């Protein structure tokens, strides 16, 4: 499993995450076969420096937009303003249906942007399944 981005898409993600500081930022990645075709920069409905939650109405609208475009939701991104680009225990817990280890979005890569060094953001991708976090290679074209 890999995820391929255009350089401009990665830059859009970095810009959105930087604009959201000091809070976390989030969004969705739509595409096909691991290739990101569209980046949705979204609102953090519960903004905090260590928390994000997508706005349910926007989440629904974006997921519908992705389906209508014939694409799939292949990734979710969010920032860690002062943390590593690695899923936290909250990220892992939220990736599952409440009270289970059933992944909510088994086909999505969880992309995390660390802004610990704001001039040099670090981005990494992970799959979170059945209690296991596995790094997914990100390729930038």
């Amino acid at each position: 499993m890999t995820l391929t981005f255009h350089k401009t898409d990665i830059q859009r993600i970095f810009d959105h995450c930087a604009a959201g500081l000091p809070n976390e930022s989030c969004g969705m990645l739509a595409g096909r076969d691991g290739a990101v075709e569209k980046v949705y920069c979204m609102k953090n409905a519960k903004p905090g420096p260590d928390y994000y939650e997508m706005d349910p109405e926007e989440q629904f609208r974006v997921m519908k937009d992705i389906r209508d475009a014939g694409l799939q939701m292949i990734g979710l991104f969010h920032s860690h303003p002062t943390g590593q680009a690695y899923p936290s225990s909250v990220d892992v817990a939220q990736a599952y249906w409440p009270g289970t280890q059933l992944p909510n979005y088994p086909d999505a890569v969880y992309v995390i942007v660390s802004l610990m060094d704001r001039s040099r953001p670090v981005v990494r991708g992970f799959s979170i399944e059945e209690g296991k976090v596995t790094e997914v290679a990100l390729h930038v074209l």
Partner: protein
Amino acid sequence: MAIKVRIPTPLQKLSNGKAEVECSAQNIKELVDALERDYPGMKERLSEGGKIRRFINIYINEEDIRFMNKEDTLLKDGDTISIVPAIAGGSCQV
């Protein structure tokens, strides 16, 4: 009264692999009970103490039930219900 329900991937084991099911209900509470009758285990996945679980979003057509009458929101023939897990997380440690 036929209501279409879109079942998210993590619950499709309970719905025998079906991504969409039909049931009959007057409101969301009844819908959860109807799903439980047809697909045992659904109620516990969807609700806790009679309320829809915190990180589960339920939409009637395109409207979030939180902005309507929550579990008491009335349904009508032909409505489509989407059950969608919320997307949240963050670097906080709990």
